[in-house]
């Protein structure tokens, strides 16, 4: 496995080539949300969608989700941010803010496990 682009006590970030995007493990909060946004902005691979794998993320703060939505809305028309998660919390936050509307170019793919 190649070394992470970013690592701190809470979070590690890797880039992924196919599909283009990032894979994260750990917790995203006020201390490292800027790193997430910085690395997202550096993802190229247009015109493909940007994929963000959060299946190993145990906590994503609300401000980061807000930033993800802003990032998705800044993509060229036709491109989307595709987010993979394992907890219902992300969907809950998206719904609460109306960011689950079809015009928001963010697709959430949930892999919910029962444990």
């Amino acid at each position: 496995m190649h070394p992470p682009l970013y690592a701190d006590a809470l979070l590690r970030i890797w880039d992924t080539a196919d599909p283009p995007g990032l894979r994260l493990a750990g917790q995203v909060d006020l201390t490292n949300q800027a790193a997430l946004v910085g690395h997202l902005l550096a993802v190229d691979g247009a015109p493909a969608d940007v994929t963000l794998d959060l299946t190993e993320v145990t906590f994503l703060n609300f401000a980061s989700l807000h930033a993800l939505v802003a990032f998705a809305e800044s993509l060229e028309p036709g491109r989307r941010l595709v987010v993979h998660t394992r907890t219902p919390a992300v969907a809950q936050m998206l719904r609460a803010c109306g960011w689950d509307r079809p015009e928001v170019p963010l697709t959430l793919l949930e892999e919910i496990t029962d444990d």
Partner: protein
Amino acid sequence: MTDLRAPSRPGPAPHAHHLLLYGGDEQFLDAALPFARGGLAAGEPVFVATTRHNTALLRRHLGARAEHVCFAPTHWYRTPAQTLRAFHDKAHSAPGPSRVLGETPWIGLTGDEAREWSRYEALLTLALASTGAWHLCPYDTRVLPASALRTAQLTHPALTTGAEHRANPAHVPPERFSAACDTVPLPEPPEDRAEFHFDGMHQIADLRAFTARLAHLAALPAERIDSLLICVDEAAANAVRHGGGAGRCTFWTTAAEVFCEITDPKGSLDTALAGYLPPDTSHLDGRGLWIIRQLSDAADMRSTEHGTVIRMRMKRRR
């Protein structure tokens, strides 16, 4: 030029939030039927969230037209904050004017809960403003406590009797009503409580771990713990970013609920509308407070000369 989408509002004032006091089936139907029929005739979406008895009454009297009415699923009314969002989203998803007959379930509420539902009634007027939605709120004078009936007359800008609508002279501006709700002091946390002090953003992860451990011990379901952690993190981040940079978390439980409170001794917050209105209807940067209200079962936010308190509550069983 005629505007084909001109809302079919009653009277000159666009009051979209009406109170219907009724003392029996006949009084209920006298108002609810013309309200629903008028909406259907105008091609507007009509949504009904009322008691089982009133639902059956309406279905019977609307006959075949009941098919065009959307009746709420059970458990439509969850928390005041979530109900306000659901009605707001519904109003926005309609392409034009829409109508809602919404009967809040008052029976069996505690004093705290009743106060929050009253506040929701008051703020619904603001949340619906300019959406084209018209809400009619039936209150059953036979069974509701006098306090609920009195308060309803303060929270609705218009009154309906039968097919007649008029402005309500007793209506109180929603901001003022909401501020008045906050003059009731919050009960002191019990002696048996846990505290966690933080003085910077690098301690918020430990604060989340502290909260998760106690919430787990209180047997809060995993999904509810996730929601609570988002709320606690957001409240603490608020203290670190906008407040004094330091604060404390106090955690305690009762038989029914888990309480988690963030105190920011140097914080200040304009609390009358804090986090109550959907982000797109408020000019405040209140998204963080909005998410706290949406994901918790209840949240009290108070600001005094001693700082800001955000008290979040989760029901242990639901």
